[in-house]
């Protein structure tokens, strides 16, 4: 008896708190928390160090976030844990090398590489994913195929290009000075492209007809089909977009980081997934915000701990955030009955 009333009382208290918090939309809440943290860091470490770490966090976050947009699309729309997504990034970067080597000027080589990667992504749909879908393969089965595809992509690249480190030759040492703060020129580019890509994809999903169809497909395939949506078209578009975005981020990554080998995709993959899930699967804003949160937490942590703990701190924060925002940043609760 007593313990029931006890739970009820704590229940009540918890609900007052949580309803106060729930009144704020979660992204706003998150923003508030981040700003408070930033202020604390500014007080503790001075504005220059704290703000520089913040700038660095944005850069790291934009690499991850941009890479995650294509991933979140495929995961959200096609329910496919694309373990090969990192390797699509790699393919994009190496296609650029290939086309530049064939004589195209670099910008043109990059554009061609993005188109080629999009075409490749579409080809994987025809060769691999479509048959599996028809066989009603479950998500873990798709995961296995994605592992296989990832191996094929990565090592095909390595077969032809070798595993030694490559560069696209961009100047990675110039930086923009904002007062005492420094931001690499190409890093700034990555940041801008990352945010633009997110906004564009977000707007397309939200407002355009194809975007709505994609969301409908993501929600319920059979119903989308009987609502007259050409589902195969949706799938194709999703792959093309995902391949294009993957190549875009792979190329940007290769350019801004300056050196890479065929492993960079697989190394990046875990953070891509983390950003995707944290932000809410299928949500491009979520992917970028998720990436930024991870980036910020890692870079901020270097103010407090030795940088060797940076990845661990990032992961620890990820767990904490998931515990406090069980729906993710942009996710929604589902009705249980």
């Amino acid at each position, binding site marked *: *008896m007593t313990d*029931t*009333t006890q*739970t*009820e009382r704590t*229940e009540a208290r918890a*609900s007052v708190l949580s309803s106060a918090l*729930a009144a704020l939309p979660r992204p706003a809440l998150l923003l508030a928390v981040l700003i408070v943290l930033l202020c604390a860091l500014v007080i503790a470490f001075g504005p220059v160090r704290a703000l520089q770490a913040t700038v660095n966090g944005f850069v790291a976050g934009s690499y991850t976030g941009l890479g995650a947009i294509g991933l979140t699309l495929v995961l959200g729309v096609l329910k496919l844990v694309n373990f090969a997504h990192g390797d699509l990034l790699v393919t994009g970067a190496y296609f650029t090398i290939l086309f530049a080597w064939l004589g195209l000027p670099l910008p043109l080589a990059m554009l061609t590489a993005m188109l080629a990667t999009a075409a490749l992504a579409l080809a994987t749909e025809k060769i691999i994913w479509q048959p599996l879908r028809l066989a009603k393969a479950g998500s873990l089965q798709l995961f296995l195929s994605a592992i296989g595809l990832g191996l094929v992509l990565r090592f095909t690249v390595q077969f032809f290009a070798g595993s030694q480190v490559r560069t696209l030759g961009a100047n990675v040492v110039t930086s923009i000075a904002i007062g005492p703060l420094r931001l690499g020129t190409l890093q700034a580019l990555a940041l801008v492209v990352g945010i633009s890509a997110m906004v564009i994809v977000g707007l397309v999903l939200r407002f355009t007809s194809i975007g709505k169809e994609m969301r409908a497909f993501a929600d319920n395939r059979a119903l989308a089909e009987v609502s007259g949506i050409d589902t195969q078209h949706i799938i194709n578009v999703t792959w093309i977009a995902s391949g294009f975005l993957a190549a875009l981020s792979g190329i940007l990554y290769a350019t801004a980081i300056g050196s890479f080998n065929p492993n960079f995709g697989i190394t990046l993959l875990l953070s891509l997934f983390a950003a995707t899930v944290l932000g809410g699967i299928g949500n491009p804003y979520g992917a970028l915000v998720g990436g930024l949160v991870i980036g910020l937490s890692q870079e901020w942590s270097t103010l407090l701990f030795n940088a060797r703990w940076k990845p661990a701190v990032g992961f620890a924060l990820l767990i904490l955030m998931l515990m406090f925002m069980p729906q993710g940043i942009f996710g929604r609760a589902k009705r*249980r*009955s």
Partner: protein
Amino acid sequence: MSADAILEVADAVKDFDGLRAVDGASFHVERGSITALIGPNGAGKTTMFDLLSGFARLNTGTIRFAGRSIGGMAPHRIARLGLVRTFQLTRVLAGMSVMDNMLLAAPSQPGEHLPSLILGPRRARAAEARSRADAQALLETFGLRDKARDYAGALSGGQRKLLEIARALMTQPSLVLLDEPMAGVNPTLGRAILDHIAALREQRGTTFLFVEHDMDVVMSRADRVIVMAQGRVISAGTPAQVRADPAVVEAYLGSASPETTA
């Protein structure tokens, strides 16, 4: 409140981001009765079931079941107390056979706990045999005998509903909440099931609270009827009383009162 109430709800309130789905509802259910909960679509009936079964948390108000306050209790604990529900949008365990769906619901299977499983495998097997017989009988009643070995995910819409009800009864509950048990069920089979429910009430004293839109069923089978509209209880009483209540006619029955359909 009535001394013989198995369930008492007082001033229950439930909000969903700005929308008040249950708005201070109070009612009680008498032990051993068959009570119908009716009301227009969106009245908050399913939400009320969610609150009763622990799937949603009350904002304010109290719920007492068999003398205990169960507001805020976890669903499994409420179920173990003997209050079991079915879902309006059916939730069968798709990747398990129909029989396994039933056996899972069997009450007090010692084999479900590792220590007793390891210490007394015999008892687990005996309980299993008993449950299997019970399940078989229920499936027979619910027209699912031939489907026992099929995956529940391969059932038709109505069959899912039937399995859901049978599974709830399998737990040998003292109070069953049925959310639109007859929707989608073939009327002939539906009658047999209603007969079975009536028999269970007679034999075991099981209490039933069910949401139903089929007024023939409500009027002919329920001892008491509770009417909800816009999150509140607007009327409660015998079928005849409720049917005569102008508020009910206005809010719910409309032209569809049984007189006009029969």
